[in-house]
């Protein structure tokens, strides 16, 4: 008889609730956790491929130390003791000479990062970093500048929306299961969808309006939308008068950005822009302008995101069904939250090496910015960084220009990769610590914010198949070996769970029935007449004094993006619904669904270069070249070329992915230094490639 384990998926960063069936020590079935009505038994292809990952031998199976030059691909299998000894002796040398601050760590953030932050705090380092400079930092900082709330400080009620506006937010291919279910229900219920993207991703197919915008001109379109909305008085005046400061400054700033002007920039007819503004206004406040998820795209993405947030405010869509709502915390339910593992560890006095929070006050000090940490490694300023823990994060895949990254990483004395998979960064590590898959490891309890806040927990379904460990064991072991055991007194995961739950009034047994605990039965809505925002003024601020104190304007005049020369294209990238940023490229099931990538080029633009559909082409960018199959289509703007991210892998152990297709990040030459100075994200779509028939 199969045994049911409620847990949390680990195939991508969404971490959906799942139910796992185990029979005779084997995982035989995974489905969505049906106790969660928003989830049901649904699961995406990535989540379904979890069993294929678990039973695949092409994943990390034991600790390794490199047995040759960095990146030579030569490895020595070692015991955990030997790996730990190697790491601790290196770290002790580094800490003796440079202090704990010379150690950095990057992961992919999320609800389980608390233990890694605590580990860094225990070592006395402020340099915990995550992946977000290639993800949501622009949107996050834009949100903070307006509401005082971060990117996740507002959520969206897609199911009840009447109009959903998406600037390249590819809802149905870069999705969260619960969110896309709600989105498709909204569409089914008759919601209008406006999709704006130089490439017709699948989401365009679900839209009621599709605009093939010229790449890099979202900000121009937004300025015209705000212009019309204000000029024609299409906004929610009651809401804006009550809650907003800076409307007149915004109004005079956007005056020159007319729809006729935007048409020349974006290629979208002026009368369509005006019609859109009137239509969307008639559906307010049940309107959602999605402010972007992965908006690390252009040098003005931060300002584009600010304008999206501003449109939401102008629609008065805050804390209303069909609009945005404030995700509630345990406190809103009258309960105490989880206790942080770092709560009792002394505060680190050293400042971050990347300058976030002090040199750059506008950037959150929490996770900082990895490209600026790289700068610190490279220059030794403001102080040397000598060791780097890379934790289920893959900078050589996720960050641009791997060759330049390797030059910088080579200045480190120690690179430790902790991962489940063979990442690209694995290939450049000194020591590799294999983590158990999410089906073989327990994880700390997470807080689920929402209309019904609560907690959930990942529990292992089976014991590890190979010589791997759970993250909590690795950090506890290392802390103990480095003499910081007093801050990591945990002998079992139960010790950690009990520590986290100590103030909450909840017991770990309370998770047995459903896999999660909800702290309220009814959705919590705040009184819309008494909203408060954590900005300096308590209002929603269109003009941000905090930005302006650092000479960053609240409103940035528009600069037209570069047009490519003939034979040149702006390189865009993206994903399919069945692959995860590249973590799943070698998965036995996923690799069959999408084994390689190709290059989308506009049919007419390609034909002018003598390129035929399906033909191999050579692409180049500043000396880096590669061959890839061309896919000719009318459904991409003539200035852009597109490829799926996550291919062109360099680790031979991954036999299904090795050298299949091309790696987009390798063609983003020089972009490590091209980032949004106001928002902090790297501008991943600011590179151009030359394309010729191969």
């Amino acid at each position, binding site marked *: 008889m199969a045994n049911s384990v409620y847990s949390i998926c680990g195939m991508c960063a969404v971490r959906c609730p799942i139910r796992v069936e185990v029979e005779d020590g084997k995982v035989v079935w995974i489905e969505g956790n049906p106790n969660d009505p928003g989830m049901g038994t*649904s699961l995406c292809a990535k989540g379904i491929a979890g069993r294929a990952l678990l039973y695949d031998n092409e994943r990390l199976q034991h600790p390794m130390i490199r047995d040759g030059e960095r990146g030579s691909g030569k490895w020595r299998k070692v015991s955990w003791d030997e790996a730990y000894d190697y790491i601790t002796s290196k770290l002790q040398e580094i800490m003796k000479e440079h202090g704990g601050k010379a150690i950095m760590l990057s992961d992919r953030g999320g609800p389980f990062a608390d233990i890694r932050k605590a580990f860094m705090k225990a070592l006395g380092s402020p340099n915990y970093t995550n992946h977000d400079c290639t993800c949501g930092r622009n949107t996050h900082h834009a949100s903070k500048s307006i509401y005082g709330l971060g990117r996740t400080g507002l959520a969206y009620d897609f199911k009840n929306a009447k109009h959903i506006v998406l600037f390249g937010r590819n809802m149905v291919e870069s999705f969260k299961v619960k969110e896309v279910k709600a989105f498709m229900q909204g569409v089914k219920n008759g919601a209008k969808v406006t999709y704006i993207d130089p490439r017709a991703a699948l989401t365009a197919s679900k839209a009621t309006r599709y605009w093939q915008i010229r790449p890099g001109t979202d900000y121009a379109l937004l300025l015209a939308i705000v212009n019309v909305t204000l000029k024609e008085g299409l906004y929610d005046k009651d809401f804006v008068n009550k809650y907003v400061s800076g409307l007149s400054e915004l109004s005079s700033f956007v005056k020159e950005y007319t729809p006729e002007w935007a048409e020349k920039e974006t290629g979208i007819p002026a009368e369509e822009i005006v019609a859109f503004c009137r239509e969307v206004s008639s559906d307010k406040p049940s309107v959602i302008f999605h402010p972007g998820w992965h908006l690390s795209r252009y040098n003005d993405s931060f300002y584009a995101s600010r304008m999206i947030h501003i449109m939401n405010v102008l629609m008065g869509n805050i804390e209303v069904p069909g609009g945005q709502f404030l995700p509630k915390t345990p406190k809103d339910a009258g309960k105490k939250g989880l206790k942080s593992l770092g709560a009792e560890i002394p505060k680190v006095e050293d400042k971050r090496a990347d300058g976030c929070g002090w040199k750059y006050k506008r950037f959150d000090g929490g996770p900082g910015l990895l490209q600026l940490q790289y700068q610190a490694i490279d220059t030794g300023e403001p102080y040397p960084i000598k060791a780097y823990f890379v934790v289920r994060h893959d900078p050589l895949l996720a960050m641009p220009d791997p060759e330049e990254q390797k030059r910088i990483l080579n200045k480190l004395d120690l690179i430790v990769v902790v991962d489940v998979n063979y990442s690209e960064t694995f290939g450049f590590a000194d020591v590799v610590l294999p983590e158990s898959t999410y089906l073989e490891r327990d994880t700390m309890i997470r807080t689920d914010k929402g209309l019904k806040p609560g907690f959930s927990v990942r529990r292992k379904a089976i014991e590890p198949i190979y010589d791997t460990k759970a993250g909590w064991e690795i950090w506890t072991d290392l802390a103990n070996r480095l003499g910081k055991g007093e801050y990591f007194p945990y002998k079992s995961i139960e010790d950690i769970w009990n520590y986290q739950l100590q103030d909450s009034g909840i017991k770990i047994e309370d998770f047995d029935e459903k896999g999660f605990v909800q702290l309220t039965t009814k959705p919590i809505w705040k009184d819309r007449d008494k909203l408060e925002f954590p900005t300096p003024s308590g209002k929603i601020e269109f003009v941000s004094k905090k930005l302006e104190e650092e000479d960053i304007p609240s409103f940035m005049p528009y600069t037209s993006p570069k047009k490519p020369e003939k034979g040149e294209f702006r390189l865009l990238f993206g994903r399919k*619904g069945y692959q995860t940023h590249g973590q799943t490229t070698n998965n036995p099931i996923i690799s069959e669904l999408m084994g390689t990538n190709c290059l989308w080029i506009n049919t007419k633009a390609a034909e002018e270069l003598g390129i035929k559909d399906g033909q191999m082409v050579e692409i180049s960018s500043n000396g880096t070249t590669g061959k890839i199959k061309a896919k000719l289509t009318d459904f991409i703007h003539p200035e852009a070329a597109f490829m799926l991210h996550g291919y062109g892998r360099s680790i031979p152990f991954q036999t299904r992915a090795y050298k299949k297709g091309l790696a987009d990040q390798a063609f983003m030459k020089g972009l490590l230094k091209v980032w949004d100075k106001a928002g902090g994200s790297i501008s991943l779509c600011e590179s151009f490639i030359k394309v010729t028939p191969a």
Partner: protein
Amino acid sequence: MSKYHVEQDISLCIGCLACEAACKDKNCVPEGAFYCKMIQVGPRMVRNIPVIDHVYMACFHCEKPWCVDACPTGAMQKRSKDGIVFVDDDLCVGCKACMKACPWGVPQWNSATGKVGKCDLCMDRIDQGLQPACVTKCTTGSIKFMTPQAASEKRRRDFAEEMLKRG
């Protein structure tokens, strides 16, 4: 026709291929074979929208299955109690006659065993009162497991509601 029917609401499908992955995972479908397949059609421009549809193709479980008639060994069979068409692996000799006979390309070649496999609607799950893997895990609820009668009833209802919506 079997007692069962997999009904697809194409408008809800997002082409995420959870169905294909769920089938591969549940039925240990060999490399290169797909017992169910989402066929992408498009994009084509319809009222300025690039429409891309995904059509679910598995097995129709025919009333008079040509694959069963073509099979020389009796490996390809129709289950008497509910009409599910399935292969008895032990009897299959890999002659591929069923592959030639089926007009829809349903029987799939297993290059590892040299035999044929196909969609049996996850009949082991049906016998436990459950639904096929593809339907159970479908991300958006685009494919549903029901009787053919319920499917036509649903289609009529959906059509009527759509007509009323248009006024």
